């Protein structure tokens, strides 16, 4: 949805880590992006390339790890897979669902030199 702001957030975390851990170049960035986070991986990759230009992460490979969406169905009283935020329960078809996983947007790990 707002991948440009998020990509800037990723770069800030990378630059903070670079100051702390004294590295000069980033080769690979692993992001964890949940299926229900509203983030489009392709848009993220595009924005990441744009915002990292001229930074220590210029040209870095972006690896996006997709995490599945899950929700708690109040009717079934159990955790079920969820494809959309407003998805229906695959077991009972109901909509009384609370999202429990898949909203992650995290910088997991860096490969640096």
């Amino acid at each position, binding site marked *: *949805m*707002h991948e440009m*702001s*998020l990509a*800037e*957030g*990723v770069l*800030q*975390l*990378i*630059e*903070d*880590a670079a*100051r*702390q*851990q004294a*590295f*000069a*170049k980033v*080769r690979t960035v692993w*992001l964890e992006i949940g299926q229900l986070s*509203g983030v489009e991986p392709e848009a993220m990759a595009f924005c990441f390339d744009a915002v990292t230009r001229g930074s220590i992460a210029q040209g870095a490979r972006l690896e996006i790890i997709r995490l599945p969406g899950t929700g708690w169905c*109040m009717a079934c009283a159990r955790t079920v897979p969820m494809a*959309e*935020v*407003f998805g229906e329960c695959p077991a009972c078809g109901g*909509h*009384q*669902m*609370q*999202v429990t996983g898949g909203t*992650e*947007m*995290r*910088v*997991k*790990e*860096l*490969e*640096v*030199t």
Partner: protein
Amino acid sequence: MCTTCGCGTDEVKLEGGSAGHRHVHGDEHVHADGTRHSHEHGHDPAHEHSHEAGEGHGHSHAPGISATRRVQIEQDILSKNNAYAHENRQLLAGQGIFALNLVSGPGSGKTTLLCKTITMLGGLPVAVIEGDQQTSQDAERIRATGAPAVQINTGKGCHLDAHMVGHAMSRLALKDDSLLMIENVGNLVCPAAFDLGEAHKVVILSVTEGEDKPIKYPDMFRAASVMLLNKIDLLPHLDFDVEAALAYARRVNPQIRVIQLSAIRGQGMDEWLQFLRDGLASAVAAKQETVDSLRQRIAQLEAQLASAPAQG
């Protein structure tokens, strides 16, 4: 953009001066001259859990030859924004301020609703932060009601973030035991992800829009705890299906509280004003509880001090 704190000095403009600014979070700095500087924010969790991996393989190499290594980050992408939001929330809690983040698409009637709300609340102190890409027209409309307002122009930005709001809060010199209304940029997408430190996000849907907006923009309706269905005075002239709109909203967010109102004609405004008064009362009570418990603790410590044998 300031590479340290991330504030975009080129694009983001705070009404009444944009050349330099004062940081309210911990260390102050002024950067009107464009020099780079660094400062640490008190709540920045970025460095807490970092550690190096991939070391200790038992190999050695000559200095100067670079080798790749892995660095664990494990940080939420929005963690910087969330740290600023946490600071805002603490400031607000310390002053007993009930803050709401009003979000909607453009044209849902947010500013009209705010003007009416301020007028109908009578003397209750309300301050307003207005977010728009350009112009200070909305802040001027608010100030015409007598309430203090500050405009943030986000330039190309499509949402307010907690850092901008922190600056606007310090500009407003907020009163204790008051309401703070933050009118976000008209956009049903991006503001959903950015916590500003508010007690609640309030999403406004007007009946001149489609009733399926909650499922078209589910993130926003999921992030909000209250939905205001505005312009209900126009319902007789429209095909808008209220029950369908409410069903869509509850499908996305089963807990969402709905208030139907017309800011222009006044229907439903009592329920909305009561929600604001109740929220303010809770914020003031929470502050008082903190103050009371601190006073109690001080009294305990003073008693301990008094009964302790004199030293030296």
